[in-house]
């Protein structure tokens, strides 16, 4: 995992900060960011483990084509992290295999 924040500091004024939950831990993100951008900015590359061999996968095409950055978001599996914006309190989980339907509290 790369260390620290990978946001280019001088390059933009960002949306207001918010807190989401990633595998149960709090992660600060900015309104407007995609889930993938927020995770990558924090140096987190892993989005899921594959179904057949359990390989790690992450952000690859970055434009909604490859279907590799799938995560479980608010209990819904197979959500593309690169195409889904963050939200206050969003629950994001690293997905195992095809994922499971979670219970939304």
């Amino acid at each position, binding site marked *: 995992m790369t260390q620290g924040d990978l946001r280019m500091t001088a390059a933009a004024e*960002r949306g207001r900060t918010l807190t989401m939950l990633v595998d149960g831990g709090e992660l600060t993100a900015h309104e407007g960011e995609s889930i993938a951008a927020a995770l990558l900015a924090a140096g987190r590359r892993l989005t899921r483990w594959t179904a057949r061999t359990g390989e790690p996968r992450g952000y690859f095409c970055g434009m909604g084509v490859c279907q590799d950055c799938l995560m479980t978001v608010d209990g819904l599996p197979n959500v593309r992290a690169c195409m889904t914006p963050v939200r206050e309190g969003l629950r994001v989980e690293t997905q195992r295999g095809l994922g499971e339907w979670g219970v939304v509290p």
Partner: protein
Amino acid sequence: MSAPAPSVDCVVVGGGPAGLAAARTAARHGVRVLLIDENAELGGQYYRQMPAAFPSAGDGVLGRESVEGGRLIDEVRSLGVELCLGAVVWGIFDQRTVAVATRDATRRITAQALILAPGAYDRPVPFPGWTLPGVLTAGGAQNLMKGYRVLPGRRVLVAGSGPLLLVVAHYLLHGGARVAAVCEASAMRQLWRYAHRMLPHLNFVQQGYRYRQEIEAAGVPFLTGHVIRRALGSAEVTGAAVAPCDDDWAPIRGPEQSFDVDTVIVGYGFVSSLELSRLAGCEHRWEAALGGWVPVRSREMESTVPGVFVVGDGAGAAGSAVALEEGHMAGLAVAGRFGRLAGREYARAVSRARGRLLHLAGFRRVMDELYRFGPGLYTLAERDTTLCRCEEVTAAEALEAVREGATHVNEVKAWTRVGMGRCQGRMCGPALAHLIARATGRPVTDAGVFTPRPPAKPVPLAALAQESH
């Protein structure tokens, strides 16, 4: 599904340069246009806009294209083009009826004229380690930097072919990343041969030259005639190796050069997104200069299906300047069909657009020759390299099917599940066709393409259950 789908004059699918230009021209002439895009913001990849929630774009280095795109977007909005954003076109039925899904509902709309501007994506090239987190495409890296001002990593290797590599390296350096090397597969020999043909396009040449100088000034090695050989690591990228290649871009056996990097960016050109033009029933042909299939089109950008136009990178990747002109041309043609533009006015507008396209084609031909795709790249995959990222099928498993007699991509699909996953074969299709061609000794065109079926992209069942008109 029982009631007929509501009808609109013109539906444009794709809100990048081509789709925006098409919508603008058609709307300017009074055609009622509905523009559909999968992203939350218009602009596509090249004109990618910052999220609306970001108050300002900061410095201008990464923002040049989004500012240019922003002006076009404003114009399209002010012309009253109806927008449908965050919506996936998952099917085309009866040639011009599009099925659109949003997060929780789907609907069908019949277009009198349909303009497809689906764009292109980075050509997927399987190599050992290409599925590791930390390996990403040049387009994906661009989106992250341009769209969110986030660096993909700290120590980065850039490998691929074409001017986009220079742009990516430029952004990385600007953002404070360390670029270990830029590997250009083309040997870039005898560049003087192109000099006289590049003269009318000096602005492009100068831009490229400036990027090269900046990369050299930063002490970044620019390795021509080199390809990515492997990405290293178990949980994510911890290193990478490159190798020299021949003129066919096949790696040459011998010592590999290793780099201590946490990120690998790969960009070996683009392949057009053809799912929608195929679902509409358009005829396609193999374009050797691009190493891919493209829809057959008239000079007005109309496909072989009357009333269905295909423009921009989705009809053969040629960049944003060409995309804008093609979109404009299709917009003119549609305005002509609706009787909004006729006679000498129509002829003059079309002839001007054609002149500009011819001018740009001269530049394109040089670029296509200089960076001509080398199918030897597909020998990078080793036996246990993943070919199909979705269904996790290896190159060896696909080759086994070929040895048992499969000669078409659809046969290998049926035998191994390659291409059956969520990406619908977009990631493995081109590589599989080349793998079959190499194994059978037959032309790559004989291996064919996967038959596209709706849904062209995954759609939530909840949305399908809520189909309305």
